[in-house]
């Protein structure tokens, strides 16, 4: 069987493309090397829906930002994804930075932003009392906000799978060949590289199996390698997008992986900031961002460090100290000891300086080097991709029976007066599994019945929100592991914390032996 379109990479960009493509009569596959969607930059970023004043006019980023921002908020509404229009400030800590604010404001206006305004330091501090007294002025960006980035990607992919797109996790694209009228993708099963369990139980579904109602790929060739055929390829492989590009076309850009590290502060520190706070870029370098999250915690970071290993999401002492120092300059009450987690994400910066969007070969479209503000732009990038496909004549027929929309029950959001009745009718929503975030068993089980079920503890975390809080899954982890095993019929020992190979448990404990 031959797919019409194969999307390589299930980050927010690949997921957005799959969402829009699922509205057309096309056989589409979404290939991802990890065991879930949004395992790359799309899950480790600042989660900001950017206002659009930052990109230099004329770039793809500038063209797509404001449209992307507005579509993000619309999609969140449609797909029940958590987001909040918080607005943001770019703060100038010295008078000369005020000039920069003016430039940013002009750029913003050119890029189509609305409601931008420069206010003085006192006005800014009146609204954000925890900011340093050194704030001289601030650019107010009312349209921007924060989002739950992995849920956003997931929600779009779920709708895509519901409408026939084949999601193929654990499928790492290794080589690509053109065979006259279609591409043949050689894909390895990511799980093959990890040692199997000591016991017989087969921990995974058959290699290369696809989720969703779409067609199954054919297996063949070397062991563990799957041949996937598709007429049209879309490269949305994030930090690996140059590698994928180079499998098909001559090199034209190179990814410069740039890591950013963070502190996540517990909300018990109190309302440190209401809006997103950016430091004004200056000669001294870029400051950090202070941002509320969708779960009322706070993100502080990122720094920017060019690294060799594109998958290296380790955090370092030097970067964390640097971030702490800069954060204190902005919010003197910042205390790294209120941190509940540190993490890092790798930006797909490139030698090109802009997004790389366009045909690189016959039936091969790059959506490559999608750096910040790629999360914000994702829906607009996907629309741009659709325009190109349409021009090439791929989007002739819309699906008549396409089913959009998505609803998620979150116990915390059920109105007080309806909770008793709801729990009576759905008792599993009465059992709290994550005590920090008050997430119930009902929500976890529901997440496992959706179009793309989670396979790991962090997969459940990204869907239901368990383990996000101050105890970081110390309490609910074993319970979530048990629920995954029960609901999916898997051996508990096979269950991962996160990606393939990240098993939590190694064996059973010694058993008592009864002597005759």
């Amino acid at each position, binding site marked *: 069987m031959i797919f019409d379109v194969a999307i390589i990479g299930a980050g927010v960009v690949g997921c957005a493309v799959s969402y829009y493509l699922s509205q057309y009569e096309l056989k589409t596959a979404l290939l991802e090397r990890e065991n879930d969607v949004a395992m790359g930059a799309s899950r480790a970023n600042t989660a900001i829906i950017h206002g659009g004043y930052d990109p230099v006019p004329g770039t793809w980023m500038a063209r797509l930002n404001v449209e992307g921002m507005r579509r993000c908020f619309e999609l969140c509404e449609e797909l029940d994804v958590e987001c909040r229009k918080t607005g943001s400030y770019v703060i100038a800590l010295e008078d000369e930075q005020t000039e920069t604010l003016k430039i940013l404001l002009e750029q913003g206006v050119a890029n189509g932003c609305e409601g931008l305004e420069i206010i003085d330091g006192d006005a800014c501090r009146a609204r954000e009392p925890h900011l340093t007294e050194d704030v001289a002025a601030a650019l107010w960006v009312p349209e921007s906000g924060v989002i739950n980035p992995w849920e956003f990607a997931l929600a779009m992919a779920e709708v895509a799978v519901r409408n026939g797109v084949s999601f193929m996790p654990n499928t790492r694209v290794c080589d690509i060949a053109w065979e006259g009228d279609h591409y043949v993708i050689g894909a390895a099963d990511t799980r093959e590289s990890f040692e199997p369990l000591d016991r017989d139980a087969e921990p995974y579904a058959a290699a290369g199996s696809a989720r969703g109602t779409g067609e199954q790929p054919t297996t063949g060739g070397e062991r563990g390698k799957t041949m996937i055929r598709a007429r049209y390829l879309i490269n949305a492989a994030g930090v690996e997008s140059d590698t994928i590009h180079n499998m098909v076309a001559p090199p034209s850009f190179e990814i410069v992986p740039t890591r950013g590290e963070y502190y996540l502060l517990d909300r018990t520190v109190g309302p440190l900031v209401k809006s997103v706070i950016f430091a004004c870029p200056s000669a001294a370098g870029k400051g950090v961002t202070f941002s509320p999250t969708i779960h009322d915690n706070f993100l502080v970071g990122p720094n920017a460090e060019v690294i060799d290993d594109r998958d290296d999401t380790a*955090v370092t002492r030097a970067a964390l100290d640097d971030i702490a120092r800069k954060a204190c300059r902005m919010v003197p009450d910042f205390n790294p000891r209120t941190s509940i987690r*540190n993490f890092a994400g790798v930006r797909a910066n490139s030698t090109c300086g802009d997004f790389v969007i366009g045909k690189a070969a016959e039936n091969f479209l790059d959506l490559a080097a999608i750096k910040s503000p790629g999360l914000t732009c994702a829906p607009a990038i996907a629309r741009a991709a659709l325009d190109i496909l349409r021009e090439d004549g791929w989007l002739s027929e819309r699906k008549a029976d396409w089913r959009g929309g998505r609803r998620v029950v979150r116990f915390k959001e059920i109105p007080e007066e309806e909770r008793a009745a709801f729990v009576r009718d759905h008792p599993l929503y*009465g059992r709290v599994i994550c005590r920090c975030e008050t997430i119930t068993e009902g929500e976890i089980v529901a997440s496992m019945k959706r179009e793309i079920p989670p396979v790991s503890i962090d997969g459940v975390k990204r869907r239901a929100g368990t383990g996000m809080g101050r105890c970081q899954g*110390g309490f609910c982890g074993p319970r979530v592991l*048990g629920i995954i095993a029960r609901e999916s019929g898997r051996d*508990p020992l096979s269950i991962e914390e996160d*990606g393939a190979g990240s098993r*939590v448990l190694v*064996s059973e404990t010694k058993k008592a032996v009864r002597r005759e």
Partner: protein
Amino acid sequence: MRDHYQLIVIGGGPAGLGAAFSARRGGLDHILIVERDVELGGILNQCIHNGFGLHYFGEELTGPEYAGRLIDRLAGLGIDILCDAMALEIMPGEQEHSLRLVSADAGYRLVTCEAVVLAMGCRERTRGAIQIPGTRAAGIFTAGTAQRYVNIEGCMVGRRVIILGSGDIGLIMARRMTLEGAEVLACVELLPYSGGLTRNIVQCLQDFNIPLFLSHTITKIEGKDRVKRVTVQQVDENFRPIDGTEMYYDVDTVLLSVGLIPENELSRAAGVEIDPKTSGPVVYENRETSIPGIFACGNVLHVHDLVDFVTEESESAGEAAAAYVLRRSDTDKVRGRDEDHTGKSGDPRQASCFSLVPDQTIAYTVPQRIRPACVDNVVRVYFRVKAPYKTPKQIVFRDGERRIVASFRRPYMAPGEMEHVVLKRALLDGVRGDHLTVSVEEIS
């Protein structure tokens, strides 16, 4: 289940069980214990080693046995027990307090009561709180979580283990993992002394030849999917890693035993005053918090090393809660009979009060406030010192006029071992001023 109780105890660990028992003995008829887990016993259920109960029961028990004794004591007393249920919110009121509970069986409901005992225990500090650089691979557990996997779920969490922090749970797990066939390579402690009980260092590390590195920490964790290697370094007096002292351990597991934090989200949301020193409620001599009718005991109040003291403390909290409820109903009766009655109801809120102020040598005291008039005979004051003392010292209580009210000798003290002293009512009556400072001093 009723809609109204005289007392609701939140948490069915040793603290909750002790408080419910003594409140029943103190004369209350309608008591409810709410427990989140499917069974009573709290953290003791996963502590399958022995060493519990020497002080209280005078014999050595395992954790589950100790819990079993407390649970058995409640049999036939008519105390309502609701397990697999979580208290979500406490709404304090003038006349009565309300609690929101949720459970799969009992549903989502509002229950009212006259008094509440907070007995929610504590949780463990995590990696995020101490910011260990490196990857976020699987194989990093808090010691208590590992203990649950091993002792309750029957699953091993790793084969080659390093332990960060020398808290008791980490020490206990060093032995437990070794007995289960894992190799525990080292225990690494940032401070120049251990935070655990001496008996645990001897029995869990030394007896198994597991080295303890003081003034060391883990400075890097490597491994993409599962932990592969950690770097350990010595630290200077400002806890900064010293270059050139790196040691590398190829391990698949890191256990963290870096502290416990009282679980007070419910208390905070209810407006209970919290002591930043303990992260638990500020309490009076009877373990009553800043909100009348709300009491606290056990690890939610301050972290205990030994469950025996939890039991002791919870029994006084339970008794006090019972006295509070009965006193109120007496007052109500009196009021009902005589409209004009304005007389003193013996309301402890009216009584004069002084605070205990730890100086820089003392980490905290519990209670933080004492009303001498409310002390029957004695009040037990629990505290921890901030640094270890290897030679004999004295604990001195001075009043507002710097007069020594009481002093107690101790041959040896360490932050890892909670201390307590007993202050007699007679001494308290003589206190001048509004506070008593507590300090460690040389023996003069």
